[in-house]
């Protein structure tokens, strides 16, 4: 197709916005840990910009978006971005290379999301191996299934901007990580307080603005669907914050800043798969339910007792799952959900979510076990006591 400068302008900016989410996430997570681990936590998100970008060029884009092999994976035609041109490709009005860059930003942030589950205790070397293996064996295949012409796409699963590919996928992996790696020293016994909540709020704000690029940009064109996605994104985020804060006010007695930040992210996660398929009114419902549901997920975590340090499972896993199902219920724009007379869509959504959860859980488990056998996943007990910043990076976050 002919290049459209309007679409290209929009997608250039959207891609930049999605890139910006990864440093945003680094600060969001960085503020939540103890000050002795702030840099290591930041690094585990930020460094994905390096490692995942490299893998993406070498073979990642090809596996995810290369010509389909058996409905499960792309072939190797696009290795080293061979055959990816700066001209427009088939069916798109933007340069191929720009689409490749836009999708790269999603591949970067997804493994970075998982790092919240094993915060404050993983070795940097083990982290590098984990990220490399996980994007290769989990992200690229699942991305291909949903967006690259794989079997979930064929089945008609709806995922506008990555509810299944990104959030369910990372949330399921996070659960396995938290369980396999084990609790932090003193978890449940000592109080573990966030070191810098203003930094977390700043991170949440960067995520929120970046999410407009994430969701609206997923329209791949500057048209009415992008506008709809932007509006639904905004509503779900705002109402998500509201839902979470009201729930914790009711249950714990106080509305918190952390609750507002987490609730906004929960709303954003939940609207991601449906943002271009649902009307604004349903976006309010999706966001509000997400805020309450994800908050309850955290209470449940404390009851069960696994140490998902920064609540990736509750926010991204649970929020993503709700969003995927909600899309099957409320979709009315460009697809029909349960409420619009198509119960089949909900079934398809459930199958997609179930497949992603199952696949991600199994493969993540195997990856972790293998890495544990090779280099060991955790820093030793003394190192954990001292903090990862000094032990793993020879740095300290603050000298104030």
């Amino acid at each position: 197709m002919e290049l459209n400068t309007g679409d290209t302008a929009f997608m250039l900016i959207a891609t930049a916005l999605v890139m910006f989410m990864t440093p945003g996430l680094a600060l969001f997570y960085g503020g939540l840990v103890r000050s002795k681990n702030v840099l290591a936590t930041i690094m585990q998100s930020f460094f994905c910009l390096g490692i995942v970008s490299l893998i993406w060029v070498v073979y990642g884009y090809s596996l995810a978006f290369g010509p389909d092999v058996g409905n499960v994976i792309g072939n190797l035609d696009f290795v080293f971005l061979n055959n990816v041109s700066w001209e427009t490709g088939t069916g798109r009005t933007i340069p191929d290379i720009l689409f490749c860059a836009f999708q790269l930003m999603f591949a970067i942030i997804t493994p970075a999301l998982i790092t919240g589950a094993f915060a404050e205790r993983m070795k940097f070397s083990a982290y590098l191996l984990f990220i490399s293996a996980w994007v290769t064996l989990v992200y690229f295949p699942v991305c291909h299934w949903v967006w690259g012409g794989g079997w979930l796409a064929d089945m008609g699963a709806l995922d506008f901007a990555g509810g299944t590919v990104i959030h369910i996928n990372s949330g399921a992996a996070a659960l396995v990580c938290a369980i396999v790696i084990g609790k932090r020293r003193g978890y449940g016994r000592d109080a573990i307080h966030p070191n810098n909540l203003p930094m977390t709020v700043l991170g949440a704000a960067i995520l929120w603005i970046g999410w407009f690029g994430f969701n609206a940009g997923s329209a791949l064109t500057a048209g009415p669907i992008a506008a709809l996605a932007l509006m639904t994104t905004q509503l779900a985020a705002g109402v998500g914050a509201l839902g979470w804060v009201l729930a914790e006010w009711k249950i714990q007695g106080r509305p918190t800043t952390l609750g507002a930040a987490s609730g906004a992210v929960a709303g954003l996660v939940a609207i991601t798969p449906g943002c271009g398929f649902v009307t604004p009114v349903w976006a309010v419902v999706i966001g509000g339910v997400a805020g309450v549901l994800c908050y309850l997920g955290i209470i449940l975590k404390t009851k069960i007792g696994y140490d998902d340090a920064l609540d990736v499972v509750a926010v991204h896993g649970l929020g993503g799952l709700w969003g995927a199902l909600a899309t099957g219920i409320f979709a009315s724009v460009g697809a029909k959900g349960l409420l619009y007379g198509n119960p089949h869509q909900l079934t398809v959504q459930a199958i997609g979510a179930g497949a992603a959860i199952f696949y991600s859980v199994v493969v993540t488990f195997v990856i972790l076990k293998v890495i544990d056998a090779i280099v060991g996943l955790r820093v030793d007990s003394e190192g954990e006591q001292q903090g990862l910043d000094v032990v793993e990076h020879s740095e300290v976050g603050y000298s104030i």
Partner: protein
Amino acid sequence: MDKADTAFILASAGLVLLMTPGLALFYGGMVRDKNVLGTIMQSLFMIALISIEWVYLGYSMSFGPDVGGVIGDLSWFGLKGVTGSPSPDYATTIPQTVFMVYQCMFAVITPALITGAFAERVRFVPFLVFSVLWAVLVYNPVCHWVWGKGGWLGRLGVLDFAGGLVVHLTCGAAALAGVLVLGARKGFGRVSFMPHNLPMTVLGTGLLWFGWFGFNGGSALAADEIAATAFVATHFAGMTGMLAWVVMEWVVRGKATTLGAASGAVSGLATITPAAGFVGPNSAIMIGAIAGIVCYLAVSMKGRIGFDDSLDVVGIHGVGGVIGTLCLGIFASTQVNPGGVDGLLAGSSAQLGKQALGVAVVGGYAFIVSWLLFKVVHAVLGMRLSDEAEAQGMDLTEHSETAYNN
């Protein structure tokens, strides 16, 4: 006029503006807590100071009607004649006001970049005087030579996509001059200066990386294939710059650091700047890797030579600007940008010679004039803080503030 191009350059101008506060935080996190506000101020205040200079002198000197290939005349003083209709010479599909304000953001961040070299030891008012004079005598002429219509380096065929010469080499050369003239901080080499807030530096890095998409992508001045090429090259060079730097320090010093990741990313981003719209993604990956390795070595050498380039402006922007400008002559390809040139690897050696000339001329000019300027301003106004003020910290002595009051 193209509405999409206009939308893109407006958004890009916003992104490039955001780089200056980003730089303020990047630098602010690396100094000691008693100097964080003074350091932030030296970057942030450029938005005001240089924007004013740009309206009355800078834009006209840089892009106004050419005088002898060396400078624009002052006929656009106060933006006279700069309107919402496109210029016939620059960015012909967008309003000239948009081009003007986009270029303004480049003029703003360049003197702000220099401030990292003399961080923690310079008085505010003499610094402001220096910065305005520097913009007038160094930035505007060099900008005209390279990008102005009729500028002599541009006419010779020296290429600079988004500012390797105009931005990074000029500020790197000025930084070197500043370190030589102003000397080291008290206690340099004896006590270790610990960065006081590295998360803030990472925030700054994130803002810079984000803004750099506007800086390099926007330099296509249209929302087209070239913008996409530059955008992608930018990201990939930032990526390999970060990886290469971290690998180097891991090998040499035994640990991968957050500061290394941040510095490496900026080195890759700075280095790809001149070449961004002329090279393909795989070349950008090479350029970023070269940047990470060479800039790391340059920065480690600093300690041995005994230069107190406090926040590594010479090692990252100066060295990066040189490498990137030369790399353009090596990696450029007309298959990527039909309006560009072929470099050494595409079988043409001519461009590399032109690029080397550009480096020599711009580096030499910026260094000499900056050195003279530092000497003059220092002699007349005294740029250094008194020993006592330096010990107390510039936040208190220069601005009567303290950053953290816990």
